[in-house]
């Protein structure tokens, strides 16, 4: 049994699995995330959200493969890839792998140290770049990520606290395709992370429970704690906050995001859309790997 306070309901195993599948189906339908014939690549970390997402999309009979990005975070990365491989091989699914160190010459801890960025900042930038370019170069129409209701509510809180209008305009379950950008979707947006962990336990999906050692003190963890304290006192707060924003406020910020996208040009190094001559990822890679830009051209 699992209890979900915001639905004021307890579910047995079978009905809980149906609930998860229906929430994903509804998110995909309501936000027009996938077109018939689309090839999807799921960004797989070895954690609960991405493995549950892959499992749910396979269950809904989408054409979907996985992509794991090795971040070079010591033992943590060494373990996470094993969870991703184990899940894929047990089900006969295709898992692509890209390794920051082997394929691009740097690691997240190394990049954070050299550039004085937060590790999460370097990690997020690398993931966004690699998942998009890999999908673009390998004929995938859609990148699906395991961002769930809690992730999105926490990001929204952070963006509202700082009134980040550009980020608010881009915060949506679907980022449409554009020149240089593959469509990006978040099919778990209607499910909380407690539900995703429960889904994995009930489906027998072995995932990496241990938290990334570099995430300690991460701002978003603090936002999640605050939101969970609110949720405990007032179940449904997180969903109301996020879906209220999407239904009633997002459109007012969307123009800013569209204008920002229209002002992008191609990075002279990798061709990815950027606001400057060389994209943020190529600049990060140059500093972190010590390989000068242009040497790889």
């Amino acid at each position, binding site marked *: 049994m*699992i209890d979900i306070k915001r639905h004021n309901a307890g579910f047995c195993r079978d009905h809980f699995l149906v609930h998860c599948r229906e929430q994903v189906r509804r998110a995909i339908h309501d936000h027009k995330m996938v077109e018939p014939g689309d090839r999807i690549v799921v960004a797989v970390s070895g954690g609960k959200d991405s493995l549950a997402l892959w499992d749910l999309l396979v269950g809904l009979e989408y054409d979907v493969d996985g992509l794991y990005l090795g971040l070079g975070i010591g033992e943590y990365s060494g373990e996470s890839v094993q969870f991703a491989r184990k899940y894929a091989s047990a089900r006969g699914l295709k898992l692509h792998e890209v390794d920051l160190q082997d394929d691009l010459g740097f690691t997240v801890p190394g990049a954070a140290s050299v550039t004085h960025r937060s590790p999460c*900042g370097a990690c997020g930038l690398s993931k966004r770049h690699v998942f998009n370019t890999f999908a673009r170069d390998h004929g995938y129409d859609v990148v699906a990520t395991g961002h769930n209701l809690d992730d999105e509510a926490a990001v929204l809180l952070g963006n509202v606290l700082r009134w980040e209008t550009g980020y608010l305009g881009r915060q949506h379950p679907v980022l449409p395709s554009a020149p240089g950008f593959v469509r990006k979707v978040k099919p778990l947006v209607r499910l909380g992370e407690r539900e995703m962990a429960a889904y994995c336990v009930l489906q027998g999906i072995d995932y990496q429970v241990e938290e990334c050692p570099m995430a300690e003190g991460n701002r978003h963890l603090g936002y999640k704690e605050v939101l969970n304290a609110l949720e405990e006192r007032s179940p449904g707060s997180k969903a109301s906050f996020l879906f209220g924003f999407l239904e009633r406020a997002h459109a007012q910020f969307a123009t800013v995001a569209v204008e920002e996208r229209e002002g992008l040009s191609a990075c002279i190094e990798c061709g990815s859309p950027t606001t400057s001559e060389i994209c943020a990822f190529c600049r990060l890679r140059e500093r972190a790997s010590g390989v000068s830009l242009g040497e790889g051209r």
Partner: protein
Amino acid sequence: MKILLRNPRREIEVSGPCTVASLLHRLELNPESVLVIVGDELVTRDARLDDSASVEIRPVISGGAS
């Protein structure tokens, strides 16, 4: 009761019996941020835990969202 906690992984002993809700309250854990697992089964807040139970309290919050 033997309680397995994660992040970092460690075991503690807590006297029982008690409900899941009271155990989480004693450990100052928000029920929204964990799953409680006994054997292979998920248990709800009102479930009663015997003094001999082996319980895993598994955190569900992951960070690093960007």
